[in-house]
């Protein structure tokens, strides 16, 4: 980790700004854009802070921020309310449980763990949708959306890099 880039742990900077950025990203990517028959991918931006916040340090506000982010996503996409909050919180909880093993790991190791968290979140969302609709969602579509979400890991790495060493109590 680049110790020189460490910033003080201000909730506005490590929680509110990333959450707003995720909301803005979801809004921009929800625009009906299409070029030559190809449409914009639709990644789950909120999985980036869900992973990064769990690694930076235990937090009281982070789960509620994820709850709000997930509800915003459900309303924007007209999903069943509560679907993405559950998936995000599951990814956050699993990552938080593995936090002692993840702190200080390399970029590629953390990317692998991020992929596992994304897989867990998508598996839960897929299972719940299957349960509610009685129809299995398209696995190829899930794979594509999960893949695009996995490509967002550098953003999570940047967030972790900026704030992981800010609170020495949880080092």
């Amino acid at each position: 980790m680049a110790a020189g880039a460490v910033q003080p742990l201000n909730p506005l900077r490590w929680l509110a700004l990333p959450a707003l950025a995720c909301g803005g990203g979801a809004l921009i990517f929800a625009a009906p854009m299409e070029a030559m028959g190809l449409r914009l991918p639709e990644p789950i931006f909120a999985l980036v802070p869900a992973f990064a916040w769990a690694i930076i340090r235990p937090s009281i506000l982070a789960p509620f921020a994820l709850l709000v982010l997930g509800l915003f996503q459900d309303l924007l996409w007209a999903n069943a309310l509560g679907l993405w909050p559950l998936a995000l919180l599951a990814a956050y909880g699993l990552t938080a449980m593995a936090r002692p093993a993840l702190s200080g790991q390399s970029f590629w190791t953390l990317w692998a763990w991020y992929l596992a968290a994304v897989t867990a979140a998508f598996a839960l969302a897929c299972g719940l949708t299957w349960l509610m609709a009685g129809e299995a969602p398209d696995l190829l579509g899930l794979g594509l959306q999960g893949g695009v979400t996995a490509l967002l890991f550098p953003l999570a790495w940047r967030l972790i890099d900026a704030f992981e060493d800010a609170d020495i109590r949880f080092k």
Partner: protein
Amino acid sequence: MKPPLAWLAVAALAVALIAAVAIFVADRRGAPLFPAASEVREKFDSVMGPVEAVISAPAHWGREGVNAVSAYVMAGSQNRKLKAELAETRFYGDQLNSLRDENARLRALLGVRTDPPLPMVGARTVVDARGPLSNTRLADVGADQGVMEGNPVLSEHGLVGRVIGVAPSMSRILLLTDVDSRVPVLIARTNARAILTGDGGPTPKLAYLRTHDAPQVGDRVLTSGDGGVIPRGLPVGTVVQSLEGWRVALDCDSAPIDFVRILLFRDFSQLLAPGAMAPKILPPLATAPPTPTPAAQAPAAQAPPPKAPVAKVPKAEVPAPQSAPARAESSDP
């Protein structure tokens, strides 16, 4: 003693999880257990619609610009193509006029009642949820323009979906590809019925297909009108085969779904003349006046004869009993 932050964080996670589960259980899309969820969705769509209209405006302008440039660059080849199409269309136009005339005469002969044209409103889509778990769009017309839940939505090529939520100036469209979408359809060649079932992929499945005549790749699929939610005969797509069975390549996928038309279709009673389904008031039964008994005739000779109760029925509305003329005929001689 202050509890450690780690424990408080675990408690916060547990509370957030419980809240998420409670919200998920309480709100089921299409059948919310608490009406506040629908109101929240409507308000959210009302707010987000204009915001997304601004965000998506550059994309719309860009596409229109690209279309204008490509139309200019491709003008020569388009001209040749259009001339060929025009020549072909003239031939079909003559056939169409002949068939239309024949059709009108046959309809008149058979007394077939044709459905009146349905009113519709045009809309622009501003939000596009296209993941495998949700395929919906937000259109910029709503209850103020007469849009209601369940209204079918078409693009210029075919059926797109139906309206599942309406705010005053916005409406939410559930696309045919959504995992919750179920639309009764028929295969035009065989008249076989099926349910078009979305799964988040680009080609929805043909489920519950019951027919002796198996579908063929390229068969046209139309709405069947079964269930009365969507009128019959709207174009849906063509049959394609996949590893899992028969699917439908949607007509509406052949071009971007920027503009849509929302059919203001409620149910089939809308296609009848006003009052045609109103309950009829039947005329009262006409009964013969009571015959006086011999015991009652004696006092009746002294008293003025009572007026027999006669139902005041207009003659034209009461059908004459069949037996009456026969009796009259037999008693005449």
